[in-house]
């Protein structure tokens, strides 16, 4: 049993509450202090330090960054040395291919889920698409390593045909596995987008004489486009920044590998300068995506 508080002797909490009530700015300050310190000081601060490192010079012998000695050497290197351009081009191409592949695989199943399947089967399918999404990222990459490697499942299927599988050294391996990894991120937004299209619009289209294909092309596709673009933000961005998949299934370097390798062993300024590339690409991508109305479908 707690004794009832007497009104003449308010508790410290109550006094504080009364004090705060009259001072909304202080309340706001208390609420925002933590998030502000974490997201602005720590996170944006880190991005700023990364940016600074791109312009800082290195000790010629140790490779240690010397803060506040300014140079554009890192940018000169990434713009003039061919391999950085090749890797950027390769990464962007694979990210685009992965996105197109996931649209091609994801749209039909999302369409089936949203507009053809019975409600019961639809619920099952949503769960069936969600489950691989929650399964461990590395486990999925590892599964493909097992399947693709020499004497693995792919080779054992192809061997009787006299064909050899891609193994673990081809860029195609990255394309395949990245498409696999991010497919659910494409299916779910498209499904949600298609499900939102009111049936009345489709009926109106067919009442006005449009056949199925024409209705699909003129009504369904334009309305589903923002959802497709929303899904593509995930597939494109996640492919663009991945450095573990390329290393594990195709033995090729992506943008992320250059950043990772240089940040741990090589030149920190080069890692910093090169990491501006995915940032710039994603900002441009997001600006374009916003014009398509994709943010409402996220």
């Amino acid at each position: 049993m707690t004794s009832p508080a007497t009104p003449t002797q308010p508790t410290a909490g109550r006094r504080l509450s009364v004090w705060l009530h009259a001072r909304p700015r202080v309340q706001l300050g208390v609420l925002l202090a933590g998030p502000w310190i974490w997201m602005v000081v720590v996170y944006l601060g880190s991005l700023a330090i990364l940016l600074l490192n791109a312009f800082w010079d290195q000790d010629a012998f140790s490779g240690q960054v010397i803060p506040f000695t300014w140079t554009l050497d890192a940018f000169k290197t990434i713009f003039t040395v061919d391999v950085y351009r090749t890797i950027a081009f390769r990464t962007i191409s694979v990210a685009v291919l992965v996105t197109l592949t996931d649209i091609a695989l994801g749209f039909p199943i999302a369409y089936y889920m949203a507009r053809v399947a019975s409600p019961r089967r639809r619920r099952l399918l949503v769960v069936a698409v969600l489950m691989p999404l929650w399964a461990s990222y590395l486990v999925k990459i590892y599964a493909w390593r097992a399947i693709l490697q020499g004497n693995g499942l792919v080779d054992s299927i192809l061997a009787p045909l006299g064909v050899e599988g891609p193994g673990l050294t081809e860029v195609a391996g990255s394309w395949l596995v990245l498409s696999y990894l991010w497919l659910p991120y494409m299916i779910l937004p498209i499904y949600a987008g298609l499900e939102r299209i009111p049936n009345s619009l489709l009926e109106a289209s067919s009442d006005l004489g449009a056949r199925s294909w024409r209705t699909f092309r003129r009504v369904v596709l334009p309305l589903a486009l923002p959802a497709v673009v929303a899904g593509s933000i995930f597939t494109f961005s996640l492919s663009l920044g991945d450095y573990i998949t390329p290393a594990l299934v195709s033995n090729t370097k992506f943008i992320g590998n250059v950043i990772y390798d240089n940040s741990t062993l090589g030149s920190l300024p080069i890692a910093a300068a090169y990491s501006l590339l995915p940032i710039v690409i994603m900002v441009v991508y997001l600006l374009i995506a916003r014009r398509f109305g994709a943010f409402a479908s996220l």
Partner: protein
Amino acid sequence: MTESPLVRVALRVFSGGVLVFLYLPLVVLAVYAFNPSRTLAWPPTGFTLNWFTQAAANPRIIEAFWNSILAGVGATAVALILGTLAALAVQRFEFFGRETISFIVILPIALPGVVTGVALSTTFQTVGIDFGLATIIIGHATFCVVIAYNNVIARLRRLPRSPEEASADLGADSFTTFRRITLPGMRTALLSGALLAFALSFDEVIVTNFTAGPGTETIPLWILGAIQRPNELPVVNVVALVLILLSVLPVYLAQRISEEAGAVTR
């Protein structure tokens, strides 16, 4: 619009094919977990439970598992507190820079993980912070804040203010009102946010690889190392199967939470 029967059949077959594509690798791994052979050659050579006992007795796996749990709990706690505070500030107050908050919290997941990773690791190196569990938690919490924030702010928008006003009218101070009225209203939003944040943290490797340093291993980091050591592959298979089975848990829990949330707000 009604699709022709041919189109419907084609869509059904295609969807079945996509599901096979999604599940085949997981099934293959499940089969390998019981394979007596030390290599990943197909087909498996027999059936054994030997690798399960070996995995359970491996001290590195157990330590990595605990590190993953600790990192997940730490990052989830930080993310829930920061996300809730930011959501309350944005939802309940008018202030300069209010619109930018949601932009800043979403940035760590909108930018590729490699950028967050290299930014944090560069900063830790520049400032001179030792790598370890704490730096892992800092990295994870940074991209988990948005999950808590989005969940809580969506809930706060739908929660009516009248019970809070009634509570104040009845003489409760604002802490009591928060504890007895606002917090229970946000309960399911916090739960589902916590679930997603923990799952993301538990699985994260792209940023963790930058922020862990050499001495601390989480389960994904252990897997990343072990799959490149051929004699550990059989044990990796077992850990992989366990992780696949564990991923059923969040799907089930998320379903339960959303049912409860639907019952509360409807």
